[in-house]
């Protein structure tokens, strides 16, 4: 009926599981309760040490309340009187060890911290028990707190746990609540012995064993075997010996126990790394949230203000270059709206206004939207980690945005375009024509005033040529100026759009670097932790 080491779950993969657990710890540190991280670290450390120390040996501990007969059983199994059996409770206060050959259990026992050792001579040893290290623990339920601490320490380290109970104590809360119900992961390395069966009738023994099975099921240890025996009469001892020798022969108890430790800590970690709620896919920030964030940052960076300034500057240049030469000097009196923003100064801050509270509110809301979307369904501490990843750089955002904007390559809005040059020449020519008309008309006027003979003046249609020159030059100049303004307006809009696109690209980079990347990293951390946990579990 041995259920001991019956499952042999994944013990072969223990090293992989341990390294996966290590990965979980690395990824989840700071995102799960610190005591869990400590517990996982403890398991890793203990596993590393135990696997280095005669992993083929099987350390079996007899644990139980005071007076249940641990020492009697220890003596009966080892065929000796090593451990004192007493009537005064509690009796045993130091752990005793009995080592079966082929024994070099010294370092192992050093690690276990067990000083009182006995080696069974090769000649007397039952070969079936070779490789066994048997421990007689102090009790866990007497008034001696020191005993309880020692027992608890070793219960956490040994390979196989044999819980020795008796008809009086088998249902004690101290046993079930403090130990058995917390060791459900260790069911494959747990065995219960109902000692002092000689005090009960066979029927009563059967009833007690059945009752104990019921309690174990409630503890989550339904698979743990129960043996009824009597250390005093020796009844049932061969069965226990058989179970132990089978377990020793498998040489897998150490890995099995460590595996159970990993199970236990993985179970606890799984509680804090729960599946995202309602099965939603994780690790994505939707297109909508991203767009909202970028728009909010662009607004905060003053992109619309710059766009507008570029548009107006560009238009002002066109007007200055191609306007009617007689009036265009007026435009020069205005300051260049773009230069007023001091965007060209790469070292200092620009003169862009700081983001308005409304723009800031927009940024906060957009970042929050990203966080909410990203952390939907995440366990609470992870959601908090996502939030702080996204918001940690909120204070730097102003500067980051400003430097993104100032370092942008803005087109030189003052450089006169080729077509504008052409138009300017044309305007000059037209102005010259108009002026020539004026001069001619003046000359004619002077001639008329001096009452000289009229020089021959060619006519164009009903008008005289100088009049045509003057009116034509002026009107054409105005028309060209108007036309250029229309073209310039379109060009200005295009320039503004180009600048806007370039600025938005830069702002998007800021959004990525300061908000989206940190969030993505955090989500990846969660996914990595879950993935590692799956490999560890």
């Amino acid at each position, binding site marked *: 009926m041995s259920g001991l080491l019956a499952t042999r779950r994944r013990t072969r993969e223990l090293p992989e599981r341990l390294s996966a657990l290590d990965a979980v710890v690395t990824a989840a540190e700071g995102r799960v309760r610190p005591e869990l991280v400590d517990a996982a670290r403890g398991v890793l450390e203990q596993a590393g040490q135990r696997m280095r120390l005669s992993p083929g040996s099987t350390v079996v501990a007899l644990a139980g309340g005071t007076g249940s007969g641990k020492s009697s059983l220890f003596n009966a199994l080892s065929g000796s009187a090593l451990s004192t059996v007493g009537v005064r409770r509690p009796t045993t206060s130091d752990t005793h060890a009995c080592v079966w050959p082929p024994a070099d259990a010294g370092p192992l026992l050093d690690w276990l911290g067990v000083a009182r050792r006995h080696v069974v001579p090769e000649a007397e040893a039952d070969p079936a028990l070779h490789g066994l290290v048997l421990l007689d623990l102090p009790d866990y339920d007497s008034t001696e707190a020191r005993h309880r601490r020692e027992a608890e320490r070793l219960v956490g380290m040994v390979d196989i746990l044999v819980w020795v109970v008796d008809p009086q104590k088998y249902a004690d809360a101290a046993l079930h609540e403090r130990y058995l119900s917390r060791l459900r992961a260790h069911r494959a390395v747990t065995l219960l012995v109902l000692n002092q069966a000689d005090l009960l009738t066979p029927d009563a023994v059967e009833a007690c064993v059945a009752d104990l099975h019921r309690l174990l099921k409630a503890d989550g240890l339904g698979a743990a075997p129960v043996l009824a025996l009597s250390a005093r009469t020796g009844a049932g001892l061969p069965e226990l010996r058989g179970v132990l020798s089978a377990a020793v022969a498998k040489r897998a108890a150490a890995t099995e126990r460590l595996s159970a430790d990993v199970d236990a800590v993985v179970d606890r970690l799984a509680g804090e790394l729960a599946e995202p709620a309602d099965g939603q896919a994780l690790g994505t920030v939707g297109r909508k949230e991203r767009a909202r964030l970028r728009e909010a940052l662009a607004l905060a960076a003053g992109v619309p203000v710059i766009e507008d300034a570029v548009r107006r500057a560009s238009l002002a240049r066109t007007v200055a270059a191609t306007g009617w030469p007689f009036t265009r000097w007026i435009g020069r009196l205005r300051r260049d709206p773009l230069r007023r923003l001091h965007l060209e100064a790469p070292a200092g801050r620009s003169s862009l206004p700081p983001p308005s509270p*409304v723009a800031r509110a927009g940024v906060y809301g957009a970042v929050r939207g990203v966080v909410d979307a990203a952390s939907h369904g995440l366990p609470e501490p992870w959601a908090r980690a996502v939030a702080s990843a996204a918001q940690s750089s909120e204070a730097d955002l102003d500067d980051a945005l400003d430097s993104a904007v100032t370092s942008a390559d803005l087109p030189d809005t003052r450089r006169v375009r080729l077509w504008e040059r052409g138009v300017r020449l044309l305007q000059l020519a037209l102005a010259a024509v108009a002026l020539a008309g004026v001069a001619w008309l003046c000359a004619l006027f002077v001639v008329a005033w001096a009452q000289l003979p009229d020089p021959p003046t060619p006519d164009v249609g009903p008008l005289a040529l100088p009049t045509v020159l003057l009116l034509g030059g002026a009107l054409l100049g105005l028309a060209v100026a108007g036309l250029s303004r229309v073209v310039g307006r379109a060009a200005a809009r295009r320039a503004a759009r180009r600048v806007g696109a370039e600025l938005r690209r830069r702002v998007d980079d800021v959004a990525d670097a300061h908000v989206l990347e940190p969030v993505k990293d955090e989500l990846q951390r969660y996914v990595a932790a879950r993935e590692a946990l799956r490999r560890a579990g």
Partner: protein
Amino acid sequence: MSHSADEPAAGGGLLPRLGALRAALDEVDLPLELPGADAVRAEARALAGQLDDYVLPRLRSIEAPLLVVVGGSTGAGKSTLLNSLVRARVSASGVLRPTTRAPVLAHAPADAAWFTGPRVLPGLPRETGQPGSPGSPGSLALVASPAVPAGLALLDAPDIDSVVSANRELAAQLLAAADLWVFVTTAARYADAVPWSLLREASGRSAAVAVVLDRVPPEAQQEVAEHLAAMLRDEGLGDAPLFVIAEGGVHDGLLDEDAVAPVRGWLHELAGDAAARAAVVRRTLHGALAAYPERVGRLATGLAAQAAAGEALQAAAAEPYAAATDRVDAALEDGSLLRGEVLARWQEIVGTGELLRHLESRLGRVRDRVVAAVRGRPAPGEELTVALESGVEALVLAEADRAAEQAVAAWRAQPGGAQLLEAAGPGLGHASAQLRPAAQRTVREWQGGLLELVREEGAGRKATARVLSYGVNGAGLVVMVAVFASTGGLTGGELLVASGTSVVGQKLLEALLGDEAVRRLAAKARADLRSRLDSLLEGERERFTALVPEGLGERGATVAERLRGEAAAVARELRSAR
């Protein structure tokens, strides 16, 4: 049974005092899940239970039979001992642990009247079924037995240490109600930690205790008995009678007659000796009462902790909302709300002479509408209103969101906060769903109220009339612009960007309304908006503060005061009775 009302312990003032204490205990309310609150709640329950089960009934009828509770570990043989004492199997015993789930009380037939009613242990319904059959849990089986001497009743209690937690709780209740505790243990169990913690507690309140050490192997008798006696002495129980019952087997469920003879003899002697009985009663009762000031002190400490935690939670929620209110106020104050979208709209209006047109002609409004229809977008004046509205709304929403987030984080770190958040469900981390519509409504109401303000301000009848002649929209716009433009919170750059237009606007308004009036009006309108927005945020904060039970601190302090007062009065009565 001669010692009745003149018994010192029953001294006149004690009963009413204890009644008042009992009533005050019902008021003890510990709603916050603080560390240690469970222990305080349990203490309050235990105290009330002991008053109901034991102290009050004992004081009311000091002559009632002694209640002897047989208590101890499971399997120690408590039921077997009781059966052996009454020479009948009145309480089931068995090999399965634990056996006894419902207590069994054996009394002399003459004493039946003391126990059938709810005088003692009123919470346990009486059951008088087949003796020896397992009683239903939660009830008290009564057995009249001629083997029990009059003046004393024996109660077989459930165990104190098995996996069945209901047994442990019931046992604790029964032990607190005992005049005398007969602690039953065995050679295997006598050093167990659980019973010793109870013994220590009993010793601390100097309750009367007797010890029966059962199942002692004959060869171990002396060593074990001596060891146990030494342990008892160490815990201040050296005067407790110790009976050792040697392992002699159980026959028909009963122990050998001569094995239990010493215990029976002692009990009979006690029952027969009224003075000794009275001494036992006095000792346990005084011990219990003497502990009350300290126990009540623990309750008061627990209540104070609740009050402090409630206050800390309120403060933790108030702080981020106060900061949010400050930021909203600052944004209104320094005119920076006018930046961005609002500024652009403002420019559009002033820069294009829209404002003047808007103000100066009724025709303008008609034309506006035509233009709006042609261009497919609302007139600039309307756009400015919308921009302002959505600016204020966005600001308030974001600040409320931020404050909610911070308040949740602060509560999570506070004792008791996480559990309140849990109970409130999700959503507390964000601004409430109705905040957005509420903010919109608020801004609109504020705008609606602006005209009223102009009228009140009475900036010269003529000016008012002039402003009002622009119609509701126009006038609202005038004042709104005044509110945000007159603060001059814009940076030089922005003013330049706005090409000085806001200054132009300001001048225009001043010309219209008068310098002083504009300033006054703007200040008033701003204060109005601010108080409206502040009360919005206050509503948001109340989502948190309403979770902390109202008046927690005052009620707790009153109850603690009452408890302390009554306990002190009890102590005084006790001293004067001695």
